[in-house]
């Protein structure tokens, strides 16, 4: 939900309280919302209540204290310190990319988009819900969305055709989906089987799996990403949201991509795990990968990106440099109406 809709919802909740005496219980990770709406906060960590905070006009929410209780330790920043890398070669360029709705072919979902991402860069795609960012990403990633797709894709300067997902992976792209439980993970399998799913050819000889290579690779990222589990043979369904997301990231990093598109990488994850994900993203950028982050949380994009494209109604409206990173300015680009062009 974007900020405008969120504000509406909170107002409704307030009305219910004031006019009808209805008590609402809101479960949220969004600290600014909690600060705004809550009278009384209960903090739960690992299934147990760890604290309670009361909010009155005289005692507003102490966000640091809240975070400390949520995470169990102090977090000085929400976003890790990271100096932007000097961008390298252009790894991905999309030119004039146009995608129509899969069922209603007259509807344009992505409208002549132009986007580029360079080695070492973390590029954001900001937009309201329905702006077409996920559709843009999925249509690039092996034509997994849309019909009547036109435009050009260049990987490392060479024009490529990506007619299916395997072609996209072979070209060096990786796409971590929006909803990890529906599109990203097989909840019936364990960490190891999920993490290797996009790289099975690499870990096999003539179609026969090499268990040792698989185990070694997955263990490496289990340690690297601090995936909390007893072993890589535990079922991913038992992991917390943050750890599940780390498994998804591990799957894509193991496939050895040059370009990573991360769609809502910290959705449904607590503050501590978010920070760890940001650290992983920074590390990947430092290693020279081009990262594109799609997110509905403007503060998040402002906190971690080097550049942000704003998308509105399928059109890429602006390419904003770091010095232009304010919510107000980005909102302009995200809400820009389509010009009716007389043809």
């Amino acid at each position: 939900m974007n900020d405008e809709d969120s504000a509406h919802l909170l107002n409704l909740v307030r009305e219910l309280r004031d006019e009808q005496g209805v008590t609402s219980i809101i479960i949220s990770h969004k600290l600014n919302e909690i600060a705004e709406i809550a009278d009384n906060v209960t903090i739960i960590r690992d299934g147990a209540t760890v604290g309670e905070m009361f909010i009155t006009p005289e005692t507003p929410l102490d966000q640091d204290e809240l975070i400390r209780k949520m995470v169990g330790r102090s977090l000085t920043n929400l976003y890790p310190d990271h100096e932007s890398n000097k961008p390298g070669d252009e790894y991905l360029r999309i030119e004039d990319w146009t995608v129509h709705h899969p069922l209603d072919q007259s509807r344009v979902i992505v409208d002549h988009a132009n986007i580029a991402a360079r080695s070492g860069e973390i590029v954001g795609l900001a937009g309201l819900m329905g702006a077409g960012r996920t559709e843009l990403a999925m249509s690039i990633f092996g034509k997994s969305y849309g019909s009547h797709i036109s435009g050009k894709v260049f990987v490392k300067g060479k024009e490529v055709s990506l007619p299916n997902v395997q072609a996209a992976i072979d070209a060096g792209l990786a796409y971590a989906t929006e909803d990890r439980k529906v599109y990203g993970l097989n909840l019936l399998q364990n960490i190891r089987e999920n993490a290797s799913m996009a790289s099975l050819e690499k870990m096999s000889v003539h179609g026969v799996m090499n268990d040792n290579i698989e185990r070694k690779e997955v263990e490496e990222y289990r340690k690297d990403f601090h995936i909390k589990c007893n072993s890589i043979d535990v079922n991913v369904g038992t992991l917390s949201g943050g750890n599940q997301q780390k498994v998804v990231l591990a799957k894509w990093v193991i496939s050895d991509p040059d370009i990573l598109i991360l769609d809502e990488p910290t959705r449904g994850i607590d503050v501590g795990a978010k920070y760890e994900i940001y650290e992983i993203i920074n590390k990947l950028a430092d290693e020279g990968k081009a990262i594109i982050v799609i997110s509905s949380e403007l503060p998040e994009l402002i906190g971690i990106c080097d550049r942000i494209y704003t998308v509105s109604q399928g059109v890429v409206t602006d390419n904003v440099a770091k010095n232009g990173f304010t919510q107000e300015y980005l909102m302009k680009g995200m809400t820009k109406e389509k010009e009716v062009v007389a043809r």
Partner: protein
Amino acid sequence: MSTANATPVKKNKNTGVLETLANNSKQYGIVGALVVIVLVFEFLTKGVLLKPNSFVSLIQQNAYVIILAIGMVMVIIATHIDLSVGSIVAFVGGICAILMERQGVNWMLAILISLVVGLIIGCWQGFWVAYVGIPGFITTLAGMLIFRGLATVIVGESVPITSPQFRGIARNYLPNILGWWGPFDGLTIVVGIICIALFAWSQLRRRAKVAKAGLSPEPMAITVTKIVVAALLIGFVTYLLALSGNADQGGIPIMLVILAVLVLIYNFILTKTVFGRHVYAVGGNRKAAILSGINTKRVDFTLFVHMGFLSAVAAICVLSRLSSATAQAGMEFEMDAIASCFIGGTAVTGGIGTIPGAVVGALVMGVINQGLSIMGVDTAVVKTIKGLVLLGAVAVDILTKRKKG
């Protein structure tokens, strides 16, 4: 249990006996149920069930269930189903018989052609399911009708098989190359001992691998018990087989060799190959599989090709056993195969299942078939009982899952 420490919790050296039993209760439960059912029927048939020749007959008459279950379990894991296998058995059996008896084709060539026909049928059904997008249920329901009709057309009344070699597939044994050791076939005893040794070695090796990876292996008590129980079971089967047969030949039936080869190959495919991983991935979450680069259409197609092939193998075994092709062959074989899969622990919603599980499920069905047959129970009652067993097995599976979760 543990309080929040700064240092990580120390891992136990061994997981407990009860914990291991609980975690693997499904697999142990199914094998245990099989043992119980065998004992029950051994008692009810007053010992006839486990007489050597009766035991061999159990294998030869129910081999088709195991063969079809191997293919069916893979299809079901990938969230499809195949209702046409019984009709394919009749059709391919008819083709094989006609080739041999009316076209004078050599029996080995007839078998080869029949297997190819099975592959082609698999491609046909796979094409409609994978590339046109017709659900497997509908496509194979159509196949059930199509191939039953074609079988009736080509077979007519019946086509008896005259080739002794072909008839021998379902009747003969491996040659007694090690001679008779008293009343026992020497080769059988040797093979039995080798099987026990291989099982023990594989269990110990797996335990060592787990320990080496730094994880806690199952307690030695459980491993030893598994080996002892397996030794007893394999030993008992070896004993029965070694005594089986008649004056000319005995020991290991050729059918058992065919079954063993198929089970080993397909278990390897499903557990150790990229294709096997694809099957589980497609079954567990098709959308995630597609977005991970897996060609799910090709996986679906291949699964039906395998099923077609295995149906043809089953057709040949059944044809050999009955010594005659009829249009009514294979009636309700798909039900036996599907029931075997679910009794053996395959999940109804897909993504979960194993070849060993399906084999044990098929054995449960086979023992029930054979036991009730020896007791002279009416076939209608047998059907009712099998239906109740299937319902009961899946109900137990679902209820135990619900209790755990």
